[in-house]
């Protein structure tokens, strides 16, 4: 289990992390989402032992990560800007990784060679961005980690390779109980692979729930009110409302049944409850903290 409690990190007096708290259950796939500058990468760098926190705690399996080599040997990370030595080939980097990770599996490395189909003698520098990302996955998965921490992991990968990579990751989760934390802006993709989601903004985790809980907690209603009601009644607790013709689309923070019951009081001609996508949840949740899409006329 990954536990972050009241994590604080300051850069030149600016609080990049301002009391962030999250918990990733063991064996889960946790999606960390948030707007640019929310502190996702900073938090991930604490989880991988790169940054030392100014306050709070970062533990994995109950042990602090900072300078804990034994624990870090069980963590593999792919940062958004993966580093490799300029002159190194895939094989060179494999040897380098193998020298650090006691659990590095040559068997898996050779098996993944078939998956990624990259000549291991080629200099990584000469590979495309997407192929470099594949190499990062190749090496990280060969380390046989118990914890996999990924920051924008599929950027640059083609759709086929994305599916391939997710399939490998989820396979590890299913077979070995690997705990995965993914930071990404691709919410549609996260929705497919994550079972838990945390939303960050301004250095804090605003909410974290399982995806099912998150979707149950917010509903989208499409409503047609009877003649005489042109505006959304003021007593309805609506997060966001929009209108096309006579059809009102209402986003409400409650279950589908409760929302339908509240609208029924106005005898609507039509009331249809629809589940929200993760992207919509992200947008409307952050709308509550002044991070909504603004209608700006240029």
């Amino acid at each position, binding site marked *: 289990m990954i536990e972050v409690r009241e994590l604080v990190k300051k850069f030149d007096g600016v609080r990049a992390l301002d009391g962030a708290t999250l918990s990733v259950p063991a064996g889960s796939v946790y999606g960390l989402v948030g707007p640019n500058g929310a502190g996702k990468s900073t938090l991930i760098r604490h989880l991988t032992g790169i940054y*030392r926190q100014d306050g709070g705690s970062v533990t994995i399996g109950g042990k602090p990560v900072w300078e804990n*080599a034994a624990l870090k040997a069980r*963590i593999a990370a792919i940062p958004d800007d*993966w*580093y490799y030595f300029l002159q190194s080939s895939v094989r060179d980097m494999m040897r*380098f990784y193998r020298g*650090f990770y006691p659990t590095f599996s040559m068997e898996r490395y050779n098996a993944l060679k078939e998956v990624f189909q990259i000549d291991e003698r080629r200099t990584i520098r000469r590979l495309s961005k997407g192929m470099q990302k594949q190499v990062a996955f190749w090496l990280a998965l060969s380390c046989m980690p118990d914890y996999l921490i990924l920051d924008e992991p599929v950027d640059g990968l083609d759709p086929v390779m994305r599916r391939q990579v997710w399939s490998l990751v989820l396979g590890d989760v299913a077979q070995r109980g690997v705990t995965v934390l993914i930071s990404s802006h691709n919410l549609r993709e996260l929705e497919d692979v994550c079972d838990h989601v945390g939303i960050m903004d301004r250095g804090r985790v605003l909410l974290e729930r399982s995806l099912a809980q998150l979707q149950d907690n917010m509903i989208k209603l499409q409503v047609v009110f009877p003649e005489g009601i042109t505006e959304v009644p003021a007593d309805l607790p609506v997060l966001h409302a929009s209108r096309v013709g006579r059809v009102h689309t209402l986003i409400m923070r409650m279950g589908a049944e409760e929302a339908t019951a509240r609208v029924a009081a106005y005898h609507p001609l039509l009331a249809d409850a629809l589940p929200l996508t993760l992207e919509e949840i992200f947008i409307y949740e952050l709308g509550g903290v002044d991070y909504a899409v603004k209608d700006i006329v240029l």
Partner: protein
Amino acid sequence: MRSKTSCFNGALLRKDLCRFWPLWCAYLAIWLVAVPLNQFLTLFGISARYNTPIQLMDAAISNLLSMGTEMGLWMGLAFGCFFAMALFSYLCSARSVGMMHSFPIRREGLFFTHYLAGCIVFLSALAVTGLLAAAVQGAAGVLEWRNIGLWFICSAGQMLFFYSFAVFCTMFTGQILAVPVFYTALNVVVMALCQAVQMLGSVFLYGYNGGGTPAWVRWLTPPYQLMARLEATGTWNEELRCDVDHTVTGLGTLGVYVLAGLVLAGAALAVYRVRRSETADDVVAVSWARHVFRFGLGICAALTVGQWLYYLIWSEFFEGSVKSPALPLALVCMAALGLVGFFGAEMLLCKSFRVLRSGWKGAVFVTAVVLALGIGVGLDVTGVETRVPDAAAVQSVEFSFGGNSYISGTVQDPETIERVLQLHQALIAGKEEEELRKVRFYSGDPDEVQKTTGQSSVTLTYHLGRTQMRRSYELFYPYEELEDPNSLVAQLGTLVQEPAVQRAVVLDNSGLTEQELLDQLTGGSMTYVQTVYSDGGWSSSSYPFEEKVARAVLEAVLRDIDAGRAGGVMFTADGWEQTCQNSLEFWYTKEDGLNSMNIDITPAYTETIAALRQYGIINDERPLLTNGEIYTLSQQVAEQPIQQDNYEILDLLRQMPSDTEASGKTETAVEANP
């Protein structure tokens, strides 16, 4: 499960060794050229044809040891920095530092492995070089493992220190190009600041001429200290005509620096542990060092570039026309450059040009410090100008007096020290007058001023046990003041003629006691004019004399000194003309071989001249002539119609109306057609 989480990582070490191979090869290649190839050329090259085996061995060992001491210093200085830059370059990029620090290894492990990689490389390179040098020496039959060991110790010791120092510097920055800048600056900053402060004092404080370089400053300037202390030496063997018993002096100093290197490596690790990964790309990576950087750069800029700007403006517009140096101008220049340094540092730290508003408090602080320092020194708040040491505290006084000639020596007897102190007091009391005279001297018509005014210098260094005090004065005096016994120049002239002072001059040249000098004399020579050319010039030659004669002549010189006949023309208007062209050279042996010293004489050295005449050193062919007489002769020859290119001095002297030896400057007539 295998454990790979210790304080050392083999994969990382192998990567370091493979990754930077061009640098390692360059280091090895330079040493291979400098040592084995050099040894080969020395032992088997052209010099092998005309040198004896012992002389070849001497040349080879001298080369080897000086490579260890001198080249080892430069190699250590340069490659120590390159090694540290290469091995710890990952700290200067957010991507690379992120990867390294996310690996399952502690900071200690990363540091130790990288540091060890550097040590392994230079030790291996030096070992290979040493073995090849041994092979070359072995082939020539002159193999001496002791000297190869000395070379190895010197090279490896210096490299270890400078490499560790560079690693230490690297820990403070996240910019790769800042590493050599910091490293170079920290190698010399203490000496530079010491010199800058002393220079500031010597401009504004009458008589202050710096306090020398204190020992702690030398120790904190490693290149200077190692260059001065670590030296390859040998003992000259007259019979073999080469040095023998080669060794290296200053190994203790090297040992201290090796220990310091290990301490610096430990300190570097401590800094690394507190250094934050996010500081990659920052000029200064450690928070407390950022303050040192911004204020240090401001104050250094004020003291160095600020002073330079002041001298530039002063020398162009004010020098020679104003009595005292312009303290306000100096303060303005120093404060301005201090602010430039401070805000420059602030810009580097903040990575922004907009630092005026955020840095104003620091700027005020830097300005205040610079002004306080400048005013403190300029107004002599510590009383440096008027300080004269207590006679009881003075163990010895090193003096240098300049006039028509330049003499220096060391006196230790209390009576002479007391007289030096009296002169020092008189010099302090005469400050106002001397500063006015200096302005008049430099602002007047040079031709006119030099006819009527003499210039002399006095430098005194008091040895006060563990400390020393140094003062230096310039005197400008009308020549008629020599007649006034109360004038400064007359007091100085009296001191210069003191037998104790003149004996100190002679003995200071040799570094021996009088008896040792007389015992160890091996001979001597006297220079004399041989030919005068029609273009007004002349050539001289020297006439050697044997040990017994040298002893007799030197004893005569000492008798003249004791009779107060020496130093009489040091400050007179015609002092140079009155000094004999015939200079005496005495040869003597010391532990380091044959040495020599020169003594200038005047016609007043009657006993010396008598001894020279008695032993036939002075005669008609080798006449005693003053510079004035030579000058007159050459002038007269130059005025002759050109009939021949040169004139033997003997011919010229025969045409002179009378013998002028020992009688000072004489008008000499030369016939139109000699």
